[in-house]
């Protein structure tokens, strides 16, 4: 059941088109990530959904009804910004209770809800503290509590983990996703970090150049990207040029059956983790040009003939630069992109 629907949403600033006919919907209780590079209009889209900016075209439906004419404060969508924007002149208790206070709820009702929220974000004991006394993670939890206190219909998160250090990022991500699942709250999360999107979302909307490139589950987006731009955004990829003639794809490494494809020039996309390196047994065809050790994995740059390939391996064997190796390729999930 579609709760939030975006239909042909467009937005431009001066002459520049920032959002070009954006179409997607979010189901109730779903967490959808808007994934895209910085400055591609994701935050703008979020602001349009929240009501801070009007779209230049298109429709925004909630439960089938247009919400474009409903002002910000009555939309039922809540946005949490990247820098949390806690009110500096109010303590934690009053920050969390702000929305309730503005809605005119009674003192007791406020207290009940605020305590509930404090419990949820595990910040009991922090009621009297002021934002300036809190750490980054604590501020984010207060910002979340403040947003959830008014029981919004849609939660909008703008790059919520960008301001946190790596370890905190992981724990906050688990925390927020756990919270979202528990409360079953419809959420849209904006991020430029593909790992974050892959790990948190039920579905991902890939936004490039102001257009929706692809919508799908993390698996679909990663394993079956629609085009090269989408594929490249989700990580470094290798491309081997070749030709299809009469249902067979010929490339530098051999040939492949591809009956359903038309004849022509194609690029075969193979992922770094699908290329395996093996020790030289006397007939090595490739040579290691670069090696980067990343703890739980190793990144290699390998020269095979004229091609330079990226390769990702587990650290069970470590090859050194200049070493000759043999390549084997896992062709299960390769994709042929037409030129």
């Amino acid at each position, binding site marked *: 059941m579609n709760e939030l629907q975006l239909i042909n949403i467009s937005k431009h600033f001066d002459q520049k088109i920032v959002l070009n006919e954006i179409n997607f919907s979010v189901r109730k209780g779903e967490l959808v990530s808007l994934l895209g590079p910085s400055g591609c209009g994701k935050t703008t889209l979020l602001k349009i959904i*929240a009501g*801070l900016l009007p779209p230049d075209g298109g429709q925004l439906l909630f439960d089938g009804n247009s919400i474009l004419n409903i002002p*910000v*404060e*009555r939309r039922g*969508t*809540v*946005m949490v*910004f990247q820098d949390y*924007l806690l*009110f*500096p*002149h109010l303590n934690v208790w009053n920050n969390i209770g*702000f*929305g309730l*206070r*503005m*809605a005119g709820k009674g003192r007791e009702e406020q207290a009940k809800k605020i305590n509930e929220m404090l419990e949820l974000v595990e910040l009991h004991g922090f009621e009297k503290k*002021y*934002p*300036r006394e809190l750490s980054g993670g604590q501020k984010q939890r207060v910002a979340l509590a*403040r*947003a959830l206190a*008014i029981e919004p219909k849609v939660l909008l998160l703008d790059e919520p983990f960008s301001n946190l250090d790596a370890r905190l990022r992981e724990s906050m991500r688990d925390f927020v996703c756990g919270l979202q699942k528990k409360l079953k709250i419809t959420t849209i999360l904006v991020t430029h970090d593909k790992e974050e999107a892959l790990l948190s979302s039920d579905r991902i909307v890939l936004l490039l150049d102001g257009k929706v490139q692809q919508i799908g589950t993390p698996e679909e987006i990663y394993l079956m990207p629609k085009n090269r731009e989408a594929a490249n955004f989700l990580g470094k990829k290798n491309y081997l040029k070749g030709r299809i003639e009469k249902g067979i794809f010929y490339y530098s490494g051999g040939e492949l059956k591809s009956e359903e494809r038309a004849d022509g020039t194609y690029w075969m996309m193979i992922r770094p983790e699908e290329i395996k390196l093996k020790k030289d047994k006397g007939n090595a065809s490739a040579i290691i040009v670069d090696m980067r050790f990343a703890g739980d994995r190793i990144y290699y740059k390998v020269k095979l003939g004229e091609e330079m390939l990226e390769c990702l391996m587990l650290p069970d064997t470590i090859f050194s630069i200049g070493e000759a190796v043999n390549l084997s390729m896992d062709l299960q999930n390769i994709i042929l992109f037409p030129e």
Partner: protein
Amino acid sequence: MRERKWVQEILLYSIVFLLTLPIFILLIWSFTKTWPWPDLIPKDVGLRGWRYIIDPHTKILKILCFSFFLSLAVTFVTLLVSLPAAKAIGQHNFKGKKAIQIFILSPIIVPPLAVAMGIHVKFIQMGLADTFWGILLVHLIPCIPYAVRILTNVYEALGTRMEQQARILGANRLQTQFHVMLPLLAPGLVSAGSLVFIISFSQYFLTYLVGGGKIITLSMVLFPFIESGDRAIASALSLIFIAITLIFFLLINKILRTHLNTQDYFYL
């Protein structure tokens, strides 16, 4: 390094001394009728100056209270009017913005005196001359530019993000201004308010002209005494003048600063 600090301290104390020296001189003058050179301390000492002020016949205390409340009212109205103007200029871009900015700031460039005559005539026609409201309106002219200037800077520094966050959480426009913006503007209001109070309290000619002698403020009582050379009373009145502005400044500062912490205000 130590030597540098010592020099700095000497410099600091000299400046403070030079600034407060006039007050001491005024203090001494208020207790005497004549103080001829080369005497360092006058021989002729008396309470004549101060007694004049307390004497109910001269109505000085009444005038003092009136001046204080007039300037307080001017401060209040100026801030009330300047806030929306500063918000518009500080947060929005619109056609003719530059022109409006120059227009609002014009009393700083063109002395209000130059237009005071014309205003006086108009006020007479409207029946505003010689009235409290007429004076209040006239005082707004030199005060508004400064208040708008200060508050515009504060609005520019604050940006629109806090307001957006408040509205997202369900606050309507009025609630946002009152519960979120006003507390955040507080330091700016302190600055603007103090400045405006002093400007209004010090006004002489505008009050004299438009008040027509019917509305009397402290400055209007003070100046004739300075002219006539009665140093004792003039000094006493001057000290009271300084005291009042100082009290106002400290009061407003204390009230607002006890609730604030400079760390919260990233624009401070």
